[in-house]
């Protein structure tokens, strides 16, 4: 039974890899294989490669100093954080908000089986992410330092223990969010604030990681003894990787007990939380019958959809927050950064281009337009039957992304003007490029959303987080802006910043025009026929 339910869940997650919505049939084996290869290359090649490099940097010095356990403790904690990043926000939606919970509960399926299948999905997502850190750490240790039966087996057990810890963390946060959701109004915003606090801590740790690691390698014995003396469980955790059977046994016993406790807590509240109506009744507000224009009504509807879901805001609106952070950072350190870049490349224009590219890259993290088509789900008939053109509907979806991205981007542009040496023409051109870039990314996102729609999801996380279109939108945006910066160093410096920015504006405007024309014609037809 668990296998059947898990199969259903994975078929849903990887639906766009297996099924071609446009042709309404299953993809060919070759096409599916290529999609999976692309996914694997991205995860293993890019992210796994990054952590392999980190492992190589740390493994040998720490192991030689007799602190191999510290190496595993650090890499293990990094893996736990990275795995939690990948799975922690899945639990609430995946476990408690799945649309087919009522259906499954009405069938002769024991509740623990439903929970197991849901949690296995969360577990495998955490395992996938944490393995990209933990697996290179173990492999590098086995290759560079010590290979034995004990280090091999305990290393594998180390990787699995990390994934279990991630599951426990995800379940605890998911359960807390579910409990909050039962009681509070504006729960989406509260969830976002809680999650942002978690992210804040996470990024603070990542930001400090390089300094901490360097300091650690320099003073390995001092820190090693301190951790061993004051945080013995961390020492035991690290010893697992070094092939210590007793440490492995103790860690599994402790986290096994914690898992059992977590299971009992979740099982006791599962049915109650799932069967509590998600749209819990609130105190009635005064009725308002004020009218708005059609465009304003459509925009307002899209904005309401965005702000109604913590998942949507967190996964697709992160860029807004980051651009504001970038604005503050540029105001405080923009001048220093600009002079550093100018010295490094011997040109003042490079600072402007790199900062513009950086801001546009951050802006790409806003991709709310991409899943907005799929999120219409089964209520798409409303927009299709109303007397509005499909393009008006699509324009409202675009507008949400553009407004939420453009406002902080403009703030950043003024911060650049105040701190980075550039003349008025360069600033105007840079600003025009950034604005057209935001417009292009929104158009690209909705193009992908129309090309790969999924209206039959049972959890909104599937279109928001796990869809191929969202991944392409993010990567495509990053690559476009990386090319903008890269091409500057290849050709832009020769022609000068003004001409280079003019060319970049031209390319961005033409691409935007082409996508907008597509949206008005073919895209509108696709939407009308979904």
């Amino acid at each position, binding site marked *: 039974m668990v296998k059947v339910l898990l199969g259903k869940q994975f078929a849903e997650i990887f639906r766009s890899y297996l099924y071609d919505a446009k042709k309404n049939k299953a993809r060919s084996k070759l096409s599916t294989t290529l999609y999976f290869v692309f996914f694997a290359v991205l995860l293993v090649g890019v992210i796994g490669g990054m952590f392999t490099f980190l492992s190589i940097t740390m493994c040998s010095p720490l192991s030689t100093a007799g602190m191999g356990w510290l190496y595993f403790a650090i890499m293990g904690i990094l893996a736990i954080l990275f795995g939690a990043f990948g799975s922690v926000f899945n639990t609430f939606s995946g476990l408690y908000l799945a649309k087919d919970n009522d259906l499954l509960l009405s069938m002769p399926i024991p509740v623990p089986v439903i929970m197991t299948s849901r949690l296995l999905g969360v577990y495998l997502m955490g395992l996938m992410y944490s393995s990209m850190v933990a697996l290179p750490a173990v492999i590098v240790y086995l290759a560079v330092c010590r290979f034995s039966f004990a280090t091999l087996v305990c290393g594998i057990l180390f990787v699995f223990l990390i994934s279990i810890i991630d599951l426990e963390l995800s379940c605890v946060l998911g359960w807390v969010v579910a409990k909050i959701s039962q009681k509070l109004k504006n729960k989406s915003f509260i969830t976002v604030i809680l999650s942002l606090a978690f992210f804040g801590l996470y990024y603070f740790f990542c930001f400090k990681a390089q300094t901490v690691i360097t300091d650690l390698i320099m003073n390995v014995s001092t820190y090693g003894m301190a951790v061993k003396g004051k945080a013995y469980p961390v020492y035991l955790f690290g010893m697992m990787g070094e092939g210590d059977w007793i440490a492995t046994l103790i860690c599994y016993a402790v986290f096994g007990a914690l898992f059992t406790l977590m299971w009992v807590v979740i099982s006791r509240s599962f049915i109650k939380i799932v069967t509590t109506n998600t749209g819990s009744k*609130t105190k009635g507000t005064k009725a308002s019958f004020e009218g708005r224009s059609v465009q*304003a009504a459509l925009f307002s509807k899209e904005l309401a959809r965005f702000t109604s879901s913590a998942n949507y805001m967190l996964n697709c609106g992160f860029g807004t927050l980051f651009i504001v952070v970038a604005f503050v950072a540029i105001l405080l350190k923009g001048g220093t950064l600009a002079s550093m870049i100018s010295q490094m490349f011997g040109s003042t224009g490079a600072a402007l281009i790199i900062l513009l590219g950086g801001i546009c890259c951050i802006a790409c993290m806003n991709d709310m337009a991409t899943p907005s088509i799929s999120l219409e789900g089964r209520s798409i008939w409303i927009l299709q039957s109303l007397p509005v053109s499909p393009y008006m509907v699509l324009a409202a979806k675009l507008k949400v992304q553009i407004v939420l991205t453009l406002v902080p981007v403009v703030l950043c542009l003024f911060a650049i003007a105040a701190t980075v040496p550039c003349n008025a023409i360069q600033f105007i051109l840079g600003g025009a490029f950034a604005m057209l870039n935001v417009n292009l990314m929104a158009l690209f996102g909705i193009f992908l959303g129309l090309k790969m729609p999924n209206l039959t999801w049972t959890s909104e996380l599937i279109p928001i987080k796990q869809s191929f279109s969202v991944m392409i939108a993010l990567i495509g945006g990053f690559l476009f802006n990386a090319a903008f910066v890269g091409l500057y160093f290849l050709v832009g410096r020769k022609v000068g910043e003004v001409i280079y920015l003019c060319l970049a504006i031209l390319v961005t405007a033409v691409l935007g025009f082409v996508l907008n024309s597509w949206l008005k014609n073919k895209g509108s037809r696709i939407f009308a026929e979904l």
Partner: protein
Amino acid sequence: MKLLFGGNMLNIQHLTKTYGEKKAVDDLSLHIAPGEIYGFIGHNGAGKTTTLKSVVGILRFDSGSITIDGTSIQDDPISCKSKIAYIPDNPDLYEFMTGLKYLNFIADVFKVSKEDREVRIKKYADIFELSNDLTQPIASYSHGMKQKLAIIAAWIHNPKLIIMDEPFVGLDPKAAHLLKGMMREVCDNGGAIFFSTHVLEVAEKLCDKVAIIKAGKLIRSGTMEEVKGDDSLEDVFLELEEENN
């Protein structure tokens, strides 16, 4: 009353729609005059929903034509859609909105004035005993409440033609009775209703005309008297089903 109104509110000519190899609707023609309640009956998968969705402009069809109040749905879908209202078989509404926000959204799109929407929302919400729930999120509504909200949304812009797919499913007997009265009121004011149903007793009592569809083909249509004669609609429907097997 219907005799007071002339012309065609809905005219379907030779409508054909296929899904792959299967003809869901096959050369279907019918017309509805203002003032008529037109029932559409057939077994599951007969092609009722496909026909209704084609009329509403949600589904593109392969051949034939559909005109609403003289305007082709293919040539001018926006104009056609502004004259009609549609209630699907399953009221999947925007769960992230409150009932009132949803009604205001629909009223905004149909450009209903503040005064008119206030009067209509209050009137129909009172009729369906939904007034106290309008400020609650739709996610907290029962199936029947969502169905009632979908009905109020359909009536909010005073449409000329109302298309409904199984409108009585999920409604309590009182709400079903009220809906029948509202349907008759629309027709008395020169509008028209085209709806599908499996409840043959309702169709028999309520409809001026009826069409029976089987495997995408219209097998009988006309006034209730023409279709059923002295028999019950149920007997005629079952007999036609047998004949065409």
